[in-house]
Every structure is written in C-alpha cells, then in structure tokens.
C-alpha cells in the first residue's frame, strides 16, 4: 500500500494509507484514550466517541479509531477542543455510573477512572440519574455489575466473534439498553463457558474476576509471565502475586500462542496452588500408616531400598514413571536418573496412554512424531479435517483457531467423530463413524481420491516411497464397502474425499480418538498416508497435526522419558548414541529397550518389578483396567511417589515426596506445536515441598552420583549439548515467545513447520494398512460401545481441577452420556442413576441424555474417582506403540431402581 505523510501533534510521520488515526498515533507513541475500540482484535465500532481528535479542515471531530489517514492530513489529539468534547462524553457516561471507586475492584485499572482523572471531571453537568441493575453473581468465576457497564460492546465482540460462544448480546434500547446473557438470564444459566475473555476486555468494573475480589488492587500485585500447565496448547499468562500468594491470573497480550485468550482452566483454575491439603512434608509409610519424615530420612530410605533391590534382582527390577506435568528439565533428569543411576531403560510416562501411537506411527512414516505445523497456521488452512478430537473442550484455544478458520476465513471443516462434538456446528460435513473403524474410513477416502485421479502425483513421485503396495490395499476399500463397516454414507465419503484432495491446503487435526485404540498406530499411519497422497504435508498451513493432551507431554517425549529413546528420539539401541550418553554421564548404559507403562505395571503385578519411582503421575486413575493397575501398585515392593496432593497413586506408596506446582519452579515445557516455553518461579515452594528437579538431584547425590545444578537453565545447557533437536535452546533465547524445535544451534530461529523439502527420515513412507476390528466388540451380554474422554472443566484424573472450587462447582459429578433412543429403551431419564459394567468392573453415575452420543454408544469422562471410567476400559494394547484401547470396549447399562 502507498505511504502517506501525516502530521500528528506536530510530529511528522510516514505511514501506510488507510491506517486509522488511532493506530498511527500508537506508532508515534501518542496515547489516545479509547473505551470501545480494540484495534489489535479488529474491533472498531466507533461508538464511544472518547477517541475523538481534531483533523484540520474538518468541521467536526473525528473518531480516531475508525478514521483513516490520508496524504497531508494534520491531526491534533490533545487540543482544547478534543479535551472539551471528551469531557462532555465523559460527563454523559458519569450521569448514571455509580461513583464508588473506593471499593471497586477495577480501581487503578479502569479506563473510565483514568479518563475522569486526566480530564479533571469531578461531577457531571447533566446531573445524576440512577442506574441500579441487580448484581449477577451466579457464575462461580465472574461477577457482572451491569450498573457499571458503559456499553462499549467489547464483551459482546469477544464472546461472539473470538470466543464464539454467543452467550452475550446487546439487549433492549434507549435508556434500558443493557448487555444480556442468552435470553436475559443469569450468566450461570446461559451458554457461557466461563472463559473470562469478557473480563479481560471490559474497560470498567462491570465484569470482575470473582475469586480475586478483595485480594488486592492492581498496583499491589507483581506479575510473572508463565506458561499454563493444564493442556498442550501452551498458553501464556501472568500470575498476579501479592505477599507470596498467587491471587489471580491475567492475560498477557504478548503471548504468541494465545494473545489475550485463555480458557476457564487457565484463567480461573489456579486456586489449587494454595490448597490446605497440599502435601507439606515427606511421608513414610510405617505399618500401613503414613508418618511425617525429614527429607534426609526419606532420601536415605529410598537410596537403601533401590540399591538393595538393584543388587538382589538387577537393574531391570526397577522402573520409573516420569510426568507430562513436570518440566523438560525434570523429565531429562529423571530419565538420566533411571538410566545412569538405576541402570535401566524402564522409564516411561503417560504419553504411552495418549499419543505413543502418534510417536510410533509418524516416526515410521515421516521420521518424527509431532505436529507438523504451528497453531497459528490452522486458521490459514483452506480445509480442515478434524477427527477424534473434541477440540472445544480439550484444546480450547486451538478450537478458537478452527472456528476462526471457518467463520472468518472461509475454510471448510470436515468433522469425523462418533460424537456430536461442538465443532460439528461449524462443519461442512460430519462423518459419524462407528467407534474403532477409522482405518476403514481413511482407506475409503483415499480410495475415492485415487479412483477419481485427485492424488498429488508429483508429490508422490518425488517425496515418497511404498506407494504401489499401499495403493493396492486401498483400492479394495470402495466407498460402498466402507459404508458397511463405518456406517458413514458412501456419498459423504466421496464428498469429504473431494474436499480433502482439492482444497489448496488441508490441515488434518487429530487427537486421542485416533490414538487410543489397539489399531492406534495403524490409524496414525493412515493420517500420514492421506496427507502424502494429497501432497498436504511439508508445507505451510497444511500437514498432520496431532494435538497433545497434557501441558508437557510433548516435552516429556522429547526429553526421552520413553523406554526406547534418549532425549531427542535418539535410540537406546544405537551404539553411537549410547556411547555419547555414556561418555557425557560417565557411566555404562544399557542398550536394551525398557518396558512401557502398562508393561511396567504388568511386571509389577507379577513381582518382576520390585521398586518403582513415580513422579507426579496418577496411574491408579489414568490407566486402563484400574483394578488390575491398582493391584499391581499394591504388589510393588517399594513404591515412591512425588506429587502435590495425596493422589490415588500416592495413597499406595511407601514413600511420598511433596513436589511443587508450576508456580513454584523454573523450567521449560514444550507445547503441542513443539514450542519450548518458560515457566517461571512465581512464589517460594510451600511448606517443606521441593521442586522435582531438586528432589531428583538430591536423591542422586545420596545414591552416590554427582548431579548438581544451580538452576534449571544449567540443565537445559546439558540437554542442548546432547540433543540435536534442542541444540539451540538456551534460556536467554526463550524470553519472548519461546522456540519451536528442531532448533539445532544457537542461531537457528526454530522451525515453524516440519518436513519442508525433505522428511526427517528422507522420503515419506506409505504404509498399506488393513482395517481390524476393535479388541472388544459389543455382544448380547455387553451391548453398548463404551468410549471415554474429557470435559472442558476438568483435567486428566481430576487431582488438580477437582480441587479448584469453581471448576468443581460447574461440573461436580461424573455423567454417563447416552443417546435419547437408548435412554428410552433402558427407561432411564436425565439425572437418574445407572450402573455401567464391563467384563472388568462396574461403576455408578447419573445419566445425561444427549444426541451427542450416537445410538449404542455410551460416553464418560475419566476425571472422577467416585466413578472411575477406567475401571471399565480394556487394557488390550496396540502391538506397536503399546497404547491401550481407551476408546472402545463393551459395556452393559442398567437403571438402578
């Protein structure tokens, strides 16, 4: 665009034509007050008139947030005339605004107050009316005091255009105008999902963070930018701290992944940090009861026991479970502890249970198992194929990008999911496959693409291998055959295939609905196949994008908390790799691949694993076939657990060590788009707790191995030296925005999307994959398919979220979702109790009757200990990645009279 010359408050400026005066002023470092506009978010309604400026030659003042600059324009932003005009606006606003700044939560951070101060407005020449609207305190996180609302419209914009929840709108008119939720109800009973986005943009005290009320004024807080520890999106925000306590979370606009956006867990789910029931001291179990102990006693006992077991039964009778909730540095240290000190590769973590099939599948096909693209690229794709991911609830911020792609950028969305997830509303096509038939569905799509000649021949020829064999297999999966297997109409399969193949860029996004099957690796191979077939990988905005669940599940894998890899996916069986680590760590290492999570527990069950260290994981809730898993933990001769709360697993331990929350330690975590970001120590560790990295070091020292770092940054230096993909990651480079791996050296800018000219393994490899039935199918006795997942308000096994008052208030109990038809046949109604039983166990919970579940399919989340879904699930494993089949098993449902 053309550049024009403007003069703004006597400052000469060259700037792009069409920029608004407001933005031009920002560039010139001049602050024009605004109440309604949010130019960074593209919101410029021009309604509040506070931003008025004088433009020479123009009879009236212009609203700077909407008025575009042109050649030669001369602007005065703070002239007497603008001052007077702003005063009038302000006085009009103040006629019915409660003047109770002394007790208002917004005091010190309120645009209205700032303006009144700046313009010296003490009272309104228009007198005082009275606006008294009832306070809405129904939502556990948000207080709405609409008497203070200045009707700027920001919250409505936020809720409808960015969050796209559509809970808010402007209602009524004239003097009765107000912001309404749904049909003018209380917020709690509206569509509102409590993301708090509206609070983040409200310029006044009309929308307030309920739980931060009375905890202090904005100027009393110090702010520490950190990374959210709930999910793999990797949002950043500021912890606000006063007197050593985290009192609230506020958006930090500088966050690369999320901007000011956050979900309910990130923004409001921090109150677990200061819970009374945090573990405060080490505990040692004596005669079946925990007794408080000193760190010294605990370390000594662990050291003695592990040494003894190693001597008696060999290194491989010991094992370690690392954690996707801990930092990269901690995962690295714990795998080092396992390999160098215990001498075993029996180290794994819960990624085994969510995405090991991704790591296995994509490593075979492409050479590395991570999201090929960045989160921000999602909104730029011309088509999105979403399968096995309830993104709105599990990766809320990524869901915003998907919605943006569809509603703002015209992308076509295809959803393939047995459940009617929220994003189906945005979909061009919804394919409702029978659970467990994904391979058939993918093969059907690819069949259509090949028979209609829509494949990317050039890409296939130049960048891939194994095509012919793959093609022969796929050709047998005609849409008609696939319709029979999956239940998806052949016509829809054809339509979807055409969209996938013909859109300029198609981004495939998947999550645990694809991975958690006995055919998990096969499913993942199919995602790679279809991407290569259509040339949709190795390019910007298009690729294969597995969404990783926990905040640092990507990092825990990257750092080698896996039985077959050191950090950076370097194979334990590779002699040169082994030698490298051996030399760096100064010990001999094993070249035998270790056991995976489920195998470790099986071995413990059989008495082959005698000693187990579990860092901040909860297999007694998260693993499939819980009765078996719990028994295995009970049988483990010596079990050490570090965690922040007495989890179901910690209860079974011999020694419990109090770890800390992310607020109490430094480190890095890696989000689902491979972005390594900082978490920063905000407060001191509570009571006698210690950061896990320190615990591991001290225990190592006790066991006679020198492991000593002053700060996690030093651990990262060691990681960088030994791990090519993290080679350029240094703390001093992470301050703004982090870095995306691969980042091989200190000058490398990081990698936005993978496999650009070459796949990590050279050529991409097609795999011929045949459809196989799920391990357990419904039969007469167990007629329903049972499938599991998560809900927005909780995380993982609920250890943390169920300790957050508000989150638990919104979603307090487990619900069994069943289809209305099934409900009728079972004669159960919404809210009635049922018993759900599989061959392995049974649970009781209330019923939620919903179209979200297909007929014959029962859904439950696994967050609740009182009805742990995993008592029912099947521990049948995928043969390659050893991931258990959480997504399909057979159950029966009975009403409890």
């Amino acid at each position, binding site marked *: 665009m053309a550049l024009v010359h403007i003069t703004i408050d006597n400052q000469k400026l060259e700037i792009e034509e069409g920029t608004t005066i407001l933005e031009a002023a920002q560039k010139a470092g001049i602050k024009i007050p605004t109440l309604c506009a949010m130019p960074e978010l593209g919101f410029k309604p021009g309604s509040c008139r506070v931003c008025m400026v004088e433009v020479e030659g123009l009879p009236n003042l212009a609203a700077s947030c909407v008025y575009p600059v042109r050649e030669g324009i001369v602007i005065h932003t703070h002239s007497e005339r603008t001052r007077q005009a702003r005063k009038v606006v302000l006085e009009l606003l103040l006629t019915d605004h409660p003047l109770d700044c002394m007790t208002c939560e917004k005091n010190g951070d309120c645009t209205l107050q700032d303006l009144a101060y700046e313009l010296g407005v003490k009272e309104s020449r228009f007198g005082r009316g009275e606006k008294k609207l009832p306070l809405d305190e129904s939502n556990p996180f948000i207080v709405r005091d609409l008497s203070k609302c200045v009707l700027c419209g920001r919250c409505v914009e936020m809720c*409808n255009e960015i969050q796209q929840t*559509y*809970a*808010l*709108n*402007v*209602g*009524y*008119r004239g003097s009765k105008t107000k912001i*309404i*939720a*749904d*049909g*003018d109800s209380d917020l709690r009973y*509206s*569509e509102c999902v409590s993301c708090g986005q509206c609070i983040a943009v409200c310029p006044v005290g009309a929308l307030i963070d309920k739980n931060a009320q009375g905890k202090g004024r904005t100027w009393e807080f110090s702010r520490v930018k950190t990374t959210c520890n709930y999910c793999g999106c990797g949002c950043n925000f500021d912890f606000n701290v006063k007197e050593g306590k985290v009192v609230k979370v506020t958006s930090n606009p500088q966050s690369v992944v999320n901007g000011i956006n956050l979900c309910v867990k990130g923004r409001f789910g921090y109150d677990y940090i200061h819970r009374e029931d945090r573990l405060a001291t080490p505990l040692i179990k004596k005669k079946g009861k925990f007794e408080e102990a000193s760190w010294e006693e605990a370390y000594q006992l662990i050291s003695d026991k592990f040494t003894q077991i190693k001597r008696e039964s060999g290194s491989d009778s010991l094992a370690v479970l690392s954690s996707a909730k801990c930092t990269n540095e901690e995962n690295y240290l714990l795998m080092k502890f396992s390999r160098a000190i215990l001498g075993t590769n029996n180290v794994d973590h819960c990624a085994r249970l969510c995405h090991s099939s991704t790591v296995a599948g994509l490593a075979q096909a492409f050479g590395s198992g991570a999201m090929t693209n960045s989160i921000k690229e999602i909104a730029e794709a011309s088509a999105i194929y979403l399968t096995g991911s309830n993104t709105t609830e599990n990766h809320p911020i990524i869901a915003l990008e998907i919605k943006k792609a569809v509603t703002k950028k015209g992308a076509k969305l295809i959803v393939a999911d047995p459940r009617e997830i929220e994003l189906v*509303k945005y979909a061009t096509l919804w394919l409702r496959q029978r659970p467990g038939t994904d391979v058939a569905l993918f093969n059907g799509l690819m069949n259509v693409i090949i028979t209609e000649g829509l494949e990317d021949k050039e890409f296939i020829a130049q960048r891939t291998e194994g095509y012919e064999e793959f093609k022969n297999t796929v050709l047998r999966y005609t849409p008609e055959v696939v319709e029979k297997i999956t239940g998806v109409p052949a016509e829809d399969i054809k339509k979807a295939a055409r969209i996938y193949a013909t859109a300029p860029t198609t981004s495939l996004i998947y999550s645990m609905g694809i991975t958690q099957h006995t055919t998990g690796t096969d499913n993942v191979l199919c995602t790679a196949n279809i991407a290569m077939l259509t040339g949709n990988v190795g390019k910007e905005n298009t690729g294969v994008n597995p969404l990783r669940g926990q905040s640092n599940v990507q990092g825990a894998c990257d750092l080698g908390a896996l039985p077959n890899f050191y950090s950076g996916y370097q194979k334990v069986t590779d002699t040169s790799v082994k030698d490298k680590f051996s030399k760096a760590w100064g010990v001999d290492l094993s070249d035998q691949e270790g056991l995976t999570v489920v195998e470790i527990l099986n071995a413990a069950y059989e008495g082959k694993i005698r000693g187990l260290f579990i860092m901040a994981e909860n297999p007694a809730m998260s693993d499939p076939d819980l009765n078996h898993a719990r028994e295995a933990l009970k049988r483990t001769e010596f079990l050490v657990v570090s965690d922040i709360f007495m989890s179901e697993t910690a209860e079974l331990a011999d020694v419990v060590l109090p770890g800390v929350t992310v607020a109490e330690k430094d480190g890095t975590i890696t989000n689902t788009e491979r972005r390594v970001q900082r978490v920063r120590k905000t407060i001191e560790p509570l009571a006698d707790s210690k950061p896990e990295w320190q615990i591991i070091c001290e225990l190592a020292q006790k066991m006679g191995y020198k492991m000593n770092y002053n700060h996690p940054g030093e651990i990262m230096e060691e990681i960088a030296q030994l791990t090519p993909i993290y080679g350029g990651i240094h703390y001093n480079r992470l301050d703004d925005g982090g870095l995306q791996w691969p980042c091989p050296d200190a000058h490398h800018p990081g990698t936005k999307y993978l496999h650009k000219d070459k796949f990590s393994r050279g050529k991409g490899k097609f795999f011929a994959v045949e459809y196989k039935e799920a391990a357990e199918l419904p039969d007469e006795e167990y007629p329903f398919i049972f499938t599991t997942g998560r809900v927005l308000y909780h995380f993982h096994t609920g250890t943390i979220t169920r300790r957050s008052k508000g989150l638990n208030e919104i979603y307090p109990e487990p619900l069994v979702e069943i289809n209305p038809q099934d409900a009728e046949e079972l004669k159960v109604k919404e809210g009635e109790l049922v018993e759900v039983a599989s061959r392995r166990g049974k649970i009781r919970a209330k019923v939620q009757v919903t179209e979200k579940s297909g007929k014959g399919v029962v859904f439950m989340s696994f967050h609740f200990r009182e009805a742990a879904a995993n008592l029912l699930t099947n521990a049948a494993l995928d043969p390659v990645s050893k991931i258990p089949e959480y997504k399909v098993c057979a159950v029966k449902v009975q009403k409890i009279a």
Partner: protein
Amino acid sequence: MTVKEIVKRYGNKRENLLQILHDLQNQSPQKYLNKKDLEILSEEMKIPLSDIVGTASFYSMFSFTPRGKYLIRICESPPCHLLGAPAIFKVIESKLGIKEGETTPDGLFTLEGTSCLGICGVAPAMMINEEAYGNLTEEKISQILDQIREKESKR
C-alpha cells in the same frame, strides 16, 4: 402452530426472524415470547439465543413476560405527548391500579407505552389490541374500559 411449523412456513433465514417472532407472540394466549419457545427457535434457526433476544428486545412490541388479554398501548411520541399522553397514563393507571409495564391481577389488562401510532390527527391516541382510539379524554377512556369489562363478565 408449533415453533417448528412457523419456522418452516417462513424458512429459517435470518431475515425472517422478526416475522416469525411476531407470529409466535400473536399465537401465545398471553401475548408474549416465552423462554421455551425462544430456545426451540434458537435451535431451529441456528441463531444464538442471545442474538434472538437481543434483537427482539430492541422492539417495544415484543414482550418476554405474560401480558393481559387486552394490551393497552398509549402513544408517547411528541404530538400525543404535547396533547396530554402523560395525563392519559395517569387516568388509566389509577383506573386499573397498575403502572406502565404491569398487568392487572385478573390477567385482563396490560399497560404499555409505544411510539407514534400514525394517527396523530386524533392525538392523544392509544391502541387496545388491534383497535385504535383517538381524541382521548378521561370520560372516553372510562367508557372503553367499562365496555370491555362488561363484555368479559358475560363470558
């Protein structure tokens, strides 16, 4: 007609929303838009509830609370205002014992203000349901209300 049927009749395009709301309200015995109906409407038209109510509440002709069988709407626009609308309000308020926006306990009358009815020539004016009345005086109002009462008591 059910909500579904009304939507079907006009089509679920957004531009038909006002017409549909109108029909919905008119067929309601208490002449208002009830919450249940609006929720179904939101489903059927795929328009968020907040949007529907935001739109509807802008117009004074829509009500979200049950209204009386006879809806009295007094014109508040300038010509009527100048010629005594405030007094008309007072008269009716005292006769019926209700304030603007309220409904008599027997569910017979609701009193509302409205903008110009297009019969300024006979200001001050009001409408009761579909019937317009002009050149209002206290006496005339009494007559009108009494007639209605009488008719109703015979039912």
